[in-house]
C-alpha cells in the first residue's frame, strides 16, 4: 500500500479521536479600489467587491473540507483597514455606512465574522483614523459579525499614547453600548501592537496594505491534538518537544493543503498558515490543559511560563518545517473566556492578570478575552494597553488587549457570552491609576533595538 496502515490510522485517530480540524480559513480582500465620492458610494462598492470575490468562498471551503475529510470550524473574511478607504471628507456616517455594508456582506457570504473595521495609528492619527475610531462603539453595537482591530504601536514607530488613550475610551463606550449583552461588543474589538496584515484570527484579522488583491490565510487546529501528543509522551522535555513538533508538523501540513486548495478553486493567492494553537470552549481544547498535561499541577503555577515557551517554540519549529509560508500570529492564543481550562484556573485565582501578562512575553497575544469590573477606569484600561504595547515593541512581537469591562459586574462575578466567546469570571484589576503618566500623551519613541540600519 502507498501509505502504511499505521499512517492512515494515525490520520483517522487525529481527526476522529483527537479532534484535528482547521480552525479558520480566512479570505483577505483588498478594498483599496473601493473609495467612492462619499460614504454611501464607498459602502456600495465595498459590498460589490466582497460579493464578487467571496461569492464562492464558503462553497469552496465546504467542498475541500468534505474531500479531505477535515473539519473546518470557521470561514471568515478580512478586509483592508477601513480608515484607509474613508476618502477625502471622512464622516462618522460614512464609516457607519461601511460598517453596516460589511455586516451585510458577511451575512450574505455565509461567514460568521468579518474583520478590518480598524486603523493603523501607531505613529499618527489622520482625520479618517480619528473618525473611524470614534465610530467603533456604534458600529460594534449595531452589528454582530463585524470585528475591529486598531494598531496603536509598533517596534519601529513606538507607542502612540494618544491613540492608546482614545482606544481605551472606545473599549469603555463599546461595553456600555452593548451592556445588555454584558459588554460583548468588546469581544470584537482588539487593540494591537505590531499587528500583522495576514492574521486569520478574529477579532484581529485585517487585510494588510502590503497584501495582494485577495488572499487565503489559514489558522491550524486547536490544542486538543497537541494535548494528545503530550499525554502520550512520558519522557524528558527533549522528547516532549519532539512529540509536539511532530504533531505541529502534521497539523500545519493539513492547514497548508486546505489553504492552497481553497485558493486554487477560487483563483486567488494562497497567503500563509498561522501555526497558533488557539483554544475553543470544547472540552480538552485548552492551552491550560496542555500545560497541565506537561506536568504543571495547575496552569498559572510557577513553571507555567517555561512550559508555554517550550510549547510555542516547539509548535513553531514543527510548523516551519512543514510549511514555507508560516505567518500571522503563530504563537499560542490565550483568550481566557474561550478556553474552558484557563477560565477555571482564573476563577480559582491560580492564573492571574499578572501571570497572563508574563505569558505575553513568550506567546501571542496579550490580554485576550478577559472580563474586568465594569467600573474599571478608562486610564486603567489605557495602562493595560500601554503595558502590552511596551512588551510588544521591546520584544519585537505582536501583542494585543481585548478586555471586556462588563457593565455592573464586580470581581468574582461570572459572565456567559454564549457560543464562541465562552464564559468567565470577572478578575480583580489594580486600582492605582496610571493617569498621570498617560495624560502626558505623545509618542513613546521607537525601541532602540529597532534601529538596525
Amino acid at each position, binding site marked *: 500500500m502507498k501509505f502504511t496502515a499505521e499512517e492512515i490510522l494515525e490520520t*483517522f485517530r487525529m481527526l476522529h479521536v483527537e479532534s484535528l480540524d482547521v480552525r479558520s480559513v480566512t479570505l483577505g480582500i483588498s478594498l483599496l479600489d473601493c473609495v467612492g465620492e462619499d460614504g454611501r458610494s464607498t459602502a456600495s462598492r465595498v459590498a460589490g467587491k466582497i460579493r464578487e470575490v467571496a461569492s464562492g468562498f464558503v462553497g469552496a471551503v465546504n467542498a475541500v473540507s468534505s*474531500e479531505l475529510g477535515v473539519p473546518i470550524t470557521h470561514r471568515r473574511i478580512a478586509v483592508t483597514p477601513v480608515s484607509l478607504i474613508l476618502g477625502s471628507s471622512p464622516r462618522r456616517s460614512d464609516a457607519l455606512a461601511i460598517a453596516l455594508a460589511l455586516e451585510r456582506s458577511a451575512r450574505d457570504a455565509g461567514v460568521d465574522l468579518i474583520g478590518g473595521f480598524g486603523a493603523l495609528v501607531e505613529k499618527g492619527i489622520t482625520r479618517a483614523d480619528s473618525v473611524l475610531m470614534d465610530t467603533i462603539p456604534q458600529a460594534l453595537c449595531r452589528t454582530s459579525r463585524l470585528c475591529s482591530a486598531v494598531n496603536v504601536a509598533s517596534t519601529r514607530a513606538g507607542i502612540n499614547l494618544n491613540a492608546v488613550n482614545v482606544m481605551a475610551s472606545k473599549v469603555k463606550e463599546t461595553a456600555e453600548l452593548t451592556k445588555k449583552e454584558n459588554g460583548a461588543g468588546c469581544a470584537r474589538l482588539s487593540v494591537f501592537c505590531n499587528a500583522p496584515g495576514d492574521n486569520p484570527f478574529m477579532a484581529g484579522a485585517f487585510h494588510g496594505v502590503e497584501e495582494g488583491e485577495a488572499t487565503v490565510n489559514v489558522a491550524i487546529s486547536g490544542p486538543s491534538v497537541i494535548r494528545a501528543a503530550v499525554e502520550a509522551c512520558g519522557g524528558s522535555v527533549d522528547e516532549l518537544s519532539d512529540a509536539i513538533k511532530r504533531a505541529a508538523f502534521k497539523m500545519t501540513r493539513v492547514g497548508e493543503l486546505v489553504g492552497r486548495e481553497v485558493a486554487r478553486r477560487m483563483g486567488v493567492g494562497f497567503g500563509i498558515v498561522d501555526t497558533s494553537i488557539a483554544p475553543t470552549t470544547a472540552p480538552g481544547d485548552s492551552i491550560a490543559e496542555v500545560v497541565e498535561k506537561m506536568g504543571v499541577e495547575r496552569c498559572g503555577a510557577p513553571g507555567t511560563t517555561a512550559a508555554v515557551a517550550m510549547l510555542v517554540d516547539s509548535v513553531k519549529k514543527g510548523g516551519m518545517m512543514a510549511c514555507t509560508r508560516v505567518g500571522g500570529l503563530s504563537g499560542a492564543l490565550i483568550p481566557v473566556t474561550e478556553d474552558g481550562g484557563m477560565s477555571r484556573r482564573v476563577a480559582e485565582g491560580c492564573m492571574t492578570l499578572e501571570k497572563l501578562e508574563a505569558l505575553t512575553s513568550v506567546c501571542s497575544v496579550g490580554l485576550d478575552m478577559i472580563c474586568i469590573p465594569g467600573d474599571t477606569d478608562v486610564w486603567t484600561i489605557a495602562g493595560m494597553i500601554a503595558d502590552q504595547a511596551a512588551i510588544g515593541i521591546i520584544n519585537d512581537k505582536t501583542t494585543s488587549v481585548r478586555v471586556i469591562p462588563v457593565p455592573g459586574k464586580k470581581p468574582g462575578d461570572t459572565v456567559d457570552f454564549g457560543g464562541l466567546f465562552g464564559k468567565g469570571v470577572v478578575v480583580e484589576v489594580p486600582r492605582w491609576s496610571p493617569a498621570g503618566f498617560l495624560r502626558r500623551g505623545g509618542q513613546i519613541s521607537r525601541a532602540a533595538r529597532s534601529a538596525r540600519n
Partner: protein
Amino acid sequence: MTRVVITAVGTDRIGIVAGISNAIARAGANIEDLTSSRLEDKFVMLIVCDLRKSSFEELRRAVTAAGEKLGMSVVVQREEIFRAMHRV
C-alpha cells in the same frame, strides 16, 4: 483528483469486505489496494481507490450508505491529505 483512501471502522462481522467493495464497484471506482488492521478493539478496513471513472461525491455516498448497513463508520478522503501529513 484520481485517488482516494477509504477507512471503514467497526465491529468485525461477516460481509464487511463484500459490502464495501460492492458499493465501490457500483460507484464505478476501482480498488487498487486493500488491507485490514485493528484500532483498539475495532476492525479497520483500508482501501485505496482510483476515481477516474467515478465522482468523489458518488463514491462517498455509496460507501457511507453501505457502511451504515454494516454498522461501520466510513471515511472517504483524497490521498493528498496522507501525503501532506506523512511525507516530508
